[in-house]
């Protein structure tokens, strides 16, 4: 605070402070401008459909009737499914790399996991069409249908393309994000705690459970949220495998549709003001859903961070 301009002249600090403040304001301004532009773009649709846009399942460009519920459902369902697959795997990877793996193995395995993040999403999509979906159709879905078919999640025709394929693709795509952030979080836990636990006779598993995980909790939740953010916004890969049907079905085999997908699919060819406006409103909803989930995530991180730290053996 002593270097404030005017009292103690330090041009470097002055310029630096102003420049960073400008950049920070720019981000907030861009966010605000985006929100305003989307509300303006979707105004016609908001005025015409009001709340029914959120609860209607009809998406019919021929008759100019639009409802976004199937897209909201598809986005949330595919992302949560992806988290269900990716979180255990990612935590396993992170714990292995930070706590258990021999030192010579950590760098190469970590590098390979992060390499998954560098694969373009259209490549995942093609892999989904030519490898994943046929495999799901031939091997996985018939077995799930036979053994777990009494549950509504595993009923109906088995195409390979659908919510399950979408969830798996997303899970693979967000695993590197979650696992590399989690690994950094675990590494940040002071070694003295591990050594203390081991010194008291804990097994490696007990040391992780008692000494490391409780301290890393809020960071791990944060890592998961980062992954969720990526899953919500992913467009190309999931469009190629999810089946793109604006329907809500409990079955994981059934085709579904996401908000990002419908915008990518229909915007280029959309004509007519109401149609374009409705697509803009889907974009606005995606924005709102993302912001809401981030708020929830912040609260969760804050709440988890305040839980008592003791672990029990």
């Amino acid at each position, binding site marked *: 605070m002593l270097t404030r301009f005017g009292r103690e002249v330090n041009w470097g600090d002055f310029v630096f402070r102003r420049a960073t403040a400008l950049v920070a304001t720019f981000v907030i301004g861009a966010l605000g401008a985006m929100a305003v532009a989307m509300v303006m773009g979707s105004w016609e649709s908001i005025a015409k459909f009001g709340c029914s846009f959120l609860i209607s399942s009809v998406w019919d460009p*021929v008759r100019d009737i639009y409802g976004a519920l199937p897209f909201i459902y598809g986005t949330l369902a595919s992302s949560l499914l992806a988290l269900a697959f990716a979180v255990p795997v990612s935590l396993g990877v992170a714990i292995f790399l930070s706590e258990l793996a021999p030192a010579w193995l950590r760098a190469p395995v970590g590098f390979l996991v992060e390499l998954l993040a560098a694969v373009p999403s259209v490549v995942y999509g093609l892999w989904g*069409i*030519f490898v994943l979906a046929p495999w799901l159709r031939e091997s996985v879905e018939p077995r799930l249908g036979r053994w777990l078919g009494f549950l509504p999640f595993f009923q109906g025709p088995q195409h390979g393309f*659908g919510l399950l394929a979408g969830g798996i693709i997303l899970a693979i795509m967000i695993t590197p994000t979650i696992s590399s952030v989690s690994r950094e979080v675990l590494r940040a836990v002071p070694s003295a705690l591990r050594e203390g636990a081991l010194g008291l006779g804990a097994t490696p598993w007990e040391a992780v459970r008692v000494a490391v995980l409780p301290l890393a909790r809020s960071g791990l939740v944060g890592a998961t949220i980062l992954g969720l953010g990526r899953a919500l916004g992913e467009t190309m890969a999931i469009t*190629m495998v999810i*089946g793109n*049907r604006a329907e809500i079905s409990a079955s994981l085999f059934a085709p579904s549709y996401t908000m990002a997908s419908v915008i990518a699919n229909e915007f280029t060819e959309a*004509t007519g003001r109401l149609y374009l406006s409705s697509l803009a409103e889907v974009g606005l909803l995606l924005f709102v859903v993302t912001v809401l989930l981030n708020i929830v995530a912040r609260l969760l991180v804050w709440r988890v961070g305040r839980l008592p730290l003791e672990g029990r053996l």
Partner: protein
Amino acid sequence: MFVRVKMLAALLLTLAACKGSRPADATAAGDGGTPGPKKDETVSLNGAGATFPYPLYSKWISEYNKLNPNVKINYQSIGSGGGIRQIIAGTVDFGATDAPMKGDESKQAPSKLLHIPATIGAVVIAYNVPEVTGTLRLAPEALVEIYAGKIRNWNDPKIKADNPNAKLPAKEISVVYRTDGSGTTSVFTDYLSKISPEWRAKVGAGKSVDFPLGLGAKGNEGVTGQVKTSPYTIGYIERAYASQNKLPMIEIRNKAGKFVAPSTEAMSAAAASVEMPDELFVSLSNADGDAAYPITSYSYLLLYENAKDPVKGAALARYVWWGLHDGQKFSKALDYAPIPDKVLSKVEAQLKALRSGDKKLLSGS
């Protein structure tokens, strides 16, 4: 994939041609006999629109640039809807669309936009039924019922009736449609609407429609991929994708009662049997004529009748003239059919009427 390679090759050719030195006096169109003036100055034209004729247009651009290195044409295949939006906004010099503009779209344009039919394409029904070795045939009513979810299995009597010798399995038909808005979907649903009043009432025709059942795949390549990898699937795609991927195509019974395969000859026959009205756009689906393939369509260029910039306008008019004459010979190799002669004479009259202010663009003024 192959189309992509061709596009890339065309692009590289365009780039290579750009680098070449400029001849003293570039000749305009060849045999077409363009009456327009010759220009030495470099003109750059921007166009945007339909993806479906893109391979042909990019071939035209590269060939035309070899003849006229001073005319640089850039075409972005952003989709028909985008092409219509951009030509109305005036951000491009020409647009391109598969489905003609609707009345309310034309009204948004600042001045009169012309449809110029530039090429003819077909939508084919590709299928994957491992048991069937010959070519499947379908009545149009059966096709509608498959897409409406009324015919659910491959061994349905309505399919069997036209394929008495085929080994049709008792398997469920997996229906695939284009999920991204596309001229392909527009042409296909326009056909289904003509066949079935019920389809017209319940689903209708358009670039994106609410299909009663099936899986949505992204792009021609997505539908092609699903049909190729999933047995018992049926899907509609542009002819080029089916022929390059060696997918079997259904022979559809046309209005005259004949089963016709989607050959370029059958596409030309469809165009020849439909009278072209003066506004130069017309649907070719369910055309009359023994040899006509029923799911055929024109693809259009969109030009302002009154060009803002006379230099650009003249260059564009000459390029389009060339495309409709010399450019047509590239059609067949790329799975399109050339514009029939009697339609061409109508288009010629329209092109000669292009103007900038009161100056005709092609009259050699």
